[in-house]
């Protein structure tokens, strides 16, 4: 992990009508780090996630990405700057092949101007070739080679999650936001996912994820930020969080209390 945060959030606040979903939130995300955002239902995790991803603009505060402000920018602009996200419910492009789905992820790296395409510019051809190589790499990285000729709608739920991930990685982002990536996965699928996420972070990409499954999360995350009622109530390494009384009181209860006990004996 290096010095400057890739994503710096300060004073982030979001009101929905009379409801304050997030209040005065600050967090930093460093390259190569896996940061998890946890909290009870309604704590503001999804809102924070969506604010950073650009789905809506904050009511107050700022979001910096690589030193430039991104709050208020349209989603596709943020994506082209190198911030990609996955969706909680799989959102594949159902009318396209597996490869094409991933190639859309490369969109920000490919010239898509109609005129350039029609004129057959060399740069277009080179980018297309590079994108296809990248897609092929990602397919083997995530173990989807067997499904390469199959229609996207025939993928299992777990494979669909991997496709989400592949698509988000295709554009070579610097930051990737994962929305409950482990939800609905079997144990072996979770292990595969965990390994993939570690690999991604090892390559220097910053990972921010929302998760509910503590058994998946705690061994994986470098740092955890805990939200409750829209505010940050704790931040730190998984061990500390598991033991933090305020966190436990807020929501973890027996589950992590027990886990902390086990970690203490490990």
């Amino acid at each position, binding site marked *: 992990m290096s010095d400057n945060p890739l994503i710096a959030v300060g004073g982030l606040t979001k009101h929905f009508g009379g409801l304050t979903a997030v209040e005065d939130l600050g967090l930093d995300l460093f390259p190569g780090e896996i940061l998890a955002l946890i909290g009870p239902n309604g704590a503001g995790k999804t809102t924070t996630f969506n604010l950073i991803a650009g789905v809506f603009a904050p009511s107050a505060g700022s979001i910096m990405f690589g030193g430039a402000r991104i709050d208020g920018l349209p989603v596709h602009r943020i994506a082209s700057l190198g911030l990609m996200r996955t969706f909680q419910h799989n*959102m594949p492009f159902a009318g396209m092949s597996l490869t094409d789905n991933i190639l*859309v992820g490369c969109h920000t790296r490919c010239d898509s101007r*109609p005129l350039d395409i029609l004129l057959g510019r060399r740069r277009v051809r080179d980018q297309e070739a590079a994108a296809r190589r990248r897609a092929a790499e990602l397919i083997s990285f995530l173990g989807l080679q067997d499904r390469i000729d199959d229609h996207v709608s025939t993928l299992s739920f777990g494979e669909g999650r991997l496709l989400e991930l592949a698509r988000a990685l295709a554009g070579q982002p610097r930051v990737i936001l994962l929305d409950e990536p482990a939800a609905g996965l079997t144990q072996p699928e979770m292990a595969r996912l965990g390994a993939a996420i570690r690999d991604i972070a090892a390559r220097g990409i910053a990972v921010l994820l929302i998760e509910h499954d503590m058994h998946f999360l705690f061994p994986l995350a470098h740092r955890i930020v805990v939200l409750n009622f829209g505010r940050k109530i704790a931040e730190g390494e998984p061990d500390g969080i598991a033991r933090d009384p305020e966190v436990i009181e807020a929501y973890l209860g027996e589950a992590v209390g027990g886990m902390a006990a086990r970690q203490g004996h490990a």
Partner: protein
Amino acid sequence: MRGVRSTLVWLAAIVAASALAFWLGGYATDVYRKMLIWVALALSYNFLFGIVGQVAFSHFAFAGVGAYGVVILAHKLGMPFGAALVLALALCALLAFIVALPSTRLEGFYLALATLAFSQLVIVVISEGGDLTGGTGGIANYRLPSVFGYAIRGPWYTVLLVLLVAFTLWTLRRLDYSAFGRACRAIRDNAVAAAAMGVDVRRVKVQAFTLTSTLAGLAGIAYAYIDNVINPPVFGLENIFLLLFMVIVGGSGSHVGAIVGAVFLYLAPFVLEPIVGHGFLLVFGVLVVLTILFRPSGLAGLLNRRTARGTT
């Protein structure tokens, strides 16, 4: 080697389609020519409808803008033909851009309605254009001027139409198999996810709308010189419904589907009319409903499982 083979296939198809022009007699030639125009229109409409997923009812209006544009500029205002051609196309593109900008902001089916209103307004304006547009009677008594000393008549004009179809197909396929085409399909399948992947949804929609409408304008220009007569009803609602049906029944999203749908639905009345009289339109309506209900991949899906571009 792939490149050489595909070029040969293209050439063979063009030559075969052109040869047909020399073989057909008078009446059949007229049918063939009009069918080629419908194929060209179906191809460009299919891109917007089946690939970008935008339902629009303005396609024929833009064909009309092209047709009336070139005829008015070249024959009423006496411009040199080359300039009239370019200017008419530019007008199409500009108008399409102006329509696309606000319309692509509309949600759901409202784009279709805005384009419907626009196309009806175009008809009204043309009908009330007095001397300039020939009003409801239209314009007649003009001919395609000689190009470089050659008067393109008879079967050679049909060959020109074959080339129009080839050009349209080539352009659309090239755009389809590219980052732009993928962006279009992504928008169709899931616009939210597309934006998250960096696709500028508005921009791509505007580009696609402008491009396909300009291709429609080109087809309209070619149409103007088939009968050397143009009048408002041709560019009206009836035909846009038929075009929509062609694309649906043929298999939306597939170029081959558009061609098959256009040929099938254009030629079917000639076959069906002796049998069921005017009722062939009823048959079309039923076909459309059946296609949507039972086989959304259309005729193209029936003929060839792999034509639908799900398997690259």
